[in-house]
């Protein structure tokens, strides 16, 4: 884990430095004069050489100091910590939503293979996977917020105004973010279930007279889970990336908005901090997926070289 993170930290450091554009200029704008820009560069430590900046940065990160964000006038760590709950709330809601619906639809399609229902689900799932997220978002806003005036256009609800406010603000962005994973879950579940339902073990269970619903939802789904878990791990990452776009459209105050602002303002320490955080969460998610595998299938043994 440590080497992975070291590579990520170094890569981000040099990649952000390769971004064209001077942060001091980006902050002060075209109206600023040369000496003002020079002053800010010094204050930001940009007048030092690149290796010097790198060593300072690594030393700071090891001490848990991620620096100050110049565009937010706040410490990077506290900024990220304050945004994580907002993004998690959005992505987890979307994921759970898509998991329940996607897996349900997938199982339904698998048990009704080659019927109208199966075809409909497959087409909808395919549409979901290939839908451009921002287009869908704008269309939904036009329909539900502007024309019908049912749901808020943007922002995050506040608990002070009641749970209804939170849910109504969550509906559109949550739905938009859920569309891609939902399609993916449905497709994966369908193919995995078709394999499992055709296997000898299921035929045995049916022969023993066990109720069909139990065969499908408990025994069938349990055996079909491994590929779904893998896809879940991937989607966790994908949804996080998708949140950058969705948050931008809905003005959701999460990590996505922070990353957008950071990149536009060439806020080096914030970009680095945010990327490092995402890398850590990816490593963490992968670990979770591996552990989950182990629970699902005791044959998976990490000490003897995995499965």
């Amino acid at each position, binding site marked *: 884990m440590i080497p992975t993170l070291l590579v990520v930290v170094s890569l981000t450091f040099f990649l952000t430095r390769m*971004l*064209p*554009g*001077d*942060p001091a*200029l*980006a*902050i*002060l*704008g*075209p*109206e*600023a*004069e*040369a000496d*003002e*820009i020079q*002053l*800010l560069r010094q*204050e930001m430590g940009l007048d030092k050489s690149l290796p010097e900046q790198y060593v300072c940065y690594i030393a700071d990160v090891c001490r848990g100091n991620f620096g100050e964000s110049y*565009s*937010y*006038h*706040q410490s990077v760590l506290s900024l990220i910590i304050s945004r994580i709950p907002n993004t998690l709330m959005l992505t987890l809601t979307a994921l759970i939503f898509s998991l329940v619906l996607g897996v349900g639809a997938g199982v339904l399609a698998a048990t009704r293979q080659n019927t109208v229902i199966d075809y409909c689900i497959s087409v909808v799932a395919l549409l979901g996977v290939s839908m*451009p997220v*921002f*287009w869908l978002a*704008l269309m939904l*806003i*036009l329909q539900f*917020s*502007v024309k019908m*005036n049912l749901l*808020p*256009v*943007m*922002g*995050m609800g506040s608990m002070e105004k009641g749970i209804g406010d939170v849910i109504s603000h969550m509906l559109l962005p949550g739905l938009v973010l859920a569309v891609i994973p939902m399609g993916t879950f449905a497709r994966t579940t369908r193919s995995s279930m078709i394999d499992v339902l055709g296997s000898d073990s299921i035929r045995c269970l049916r022969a023993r007279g066990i109720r069909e619903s139990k065969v499908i939802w408990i025994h069938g789904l349990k055996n079909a889970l491994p590929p779904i878990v893998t896809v879940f791990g991937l989607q966790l990452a994908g949804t996080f990336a998708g949140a950058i776009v969705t948050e*931008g*459209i*809905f*003005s959701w*105050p999460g990590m996505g*908005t*922070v990353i*957008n*602002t950071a990149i*536009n*303002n*060439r806020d080096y320490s914030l970009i680095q901090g945010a990327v490092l955080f995402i890398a850590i969460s990816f490593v963490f998610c992968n670990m979770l997926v591996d552990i989950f595998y182990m629970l699902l299938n005791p044959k998976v043994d990490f000490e003897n070289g995995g499965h």
Partner: protein
Amino acid sequence: MIRRSVTTWVLAAALAAMTLAGCGSSNQSAPQQDTTTTAAASEPATTAALETRAEEEPSGEVQKGGILTVVVPSSPKTVDPKDHTTDYEADIIFQVAQNLVTYNKDYTDIIPLLATEWSVSEDGKDYTFKLRDDVYFQPGKFQDGRQMVAEDVKYSLERIYNECATDRICREFFESVEVVNDFEVIIHLKDSCGPFLETLCDIGNGILPKEEVEGWGDEFGYHLVGTGPFMLEEMVADEQVTLKKNPNYWGDEPNVDGVVVKTASDNSQIVNALVSDEAHIGMYLQGESIQRAKDAGLLAQAPATSVTMIRFNMQNGPTADPKVREAIIKAVDIDGMVSGIYQYGEASRIYQPLTFLSWGYQDKYDSLIPEYDPEAAKALLAEAGYPDGFTMTMYIGSSTNREKMAQLFQYYLGEVGITVEIKSSTMADWMSAVTGSYKDSVVNSYGITFNGTIDPYAYEEKFFTSNNIDSVSNAGGYADDQVDEWLYAAYKETDREKRTEYYGQVMEKVMNDNVGIFYACEARNWGIAPKVHDSVVRADSRLLICTPFNNIWIEQ
């Protein structure tokens, strides 16, 4: 003439096609946009007529109460007058903190705010201000709403002088503030300074209570306290800023109980929020959002104090030759270009590197622009040694208006044999590329909008003094000793008439030197809900809610 108008039509159609193609692939607009874009193309924009929205007839008396919701494209991050950098932040500060003096409703003159009157000494070095004696600070954590006195003026101005990263107070000329008594101060300058009084209108020079500034320290940027009509209640970056009415405000009581400023980085979302009644005012609309606001009857526009221009590299490359510069200007049909770029009528044609709203503007210099004449341009190019043209670059920070400009510029110059390579990048990247670019011939020309005040200093000094050749404002590297001398004289002079004369001389010289194409004054575009009354869209796009000249109220 016929040829010219055909060209304009072809260009307009091509641009419309490009815009439509853009709509198709990005799908960012409502379906009705397609028809309006076409309409705009077949009917070249009348650039002079800006939209004033039809305010709903108020059904009676001024109504008090309600929360005014405002949407801006980028979130305010810090509202310490010393540290703020964006207009969005300045708009918040303006509600909370106040200056000695401020601009009037039309943005043509300066009126008293915390000062009641002022006088300038004969030598222009001492400014005496008499202060209001009925002004109290908003109560905060470190003081309970005490009276504002001269000592606070001294503290606040000297803080900006000593600690601000940008120069907001004519730093080279500012010396000190002398407290005469509780309600009188004298500001001493090292030498007379023409733009000084205007500088005091900069929101950075708002008067603050020392206890709060020092008590909060670095956190003052989220806990601003001043003397204004609204108090800062809460500020959450990327979410919203909440302001509430100051019960002890010295001026007229604000009609609204509070203000909420929200952020929508996606411009079409600002209009959506207005249409769905989630917001009252949407600021800084762009492109198609302007048309949507117009269709919904929400659009309110005002010409901005800004200059949108193409500047040439004055020291290197082909544009270092005055004949080439003249030829380039002659090759461009500027009227056609402006109506091609601003299809929604969101800009007016200008002629000089100075806003026409400035008191120093003299229209007699308008005619110094070389007239559109492609044949003469070709002849000039041949004379300059480029009978077959040449290749040059145009650097722009990517935005719709700038990209359309670059494409039209490329088209017009192509007609006289000059190949233009467009280099488009993010604003941050653009600024790095352009700063200091006069030193070599990589950047031959660039486009930018530059915002200023109504003092010609904010344009002519910034654009043409040789002191600024390493800043973005004069990146083309214009340097002329005589112009420097005039600019310095105008800077030191306090009499407006004499300053106008100096700036006129500078104008004549730079126009004759063909330093660039100063083509448009982009408008301020706001969307305002019909039930909002007494709103003002001013040239500087300041959010004016409760001021000496207006007091917004919302029909319930």
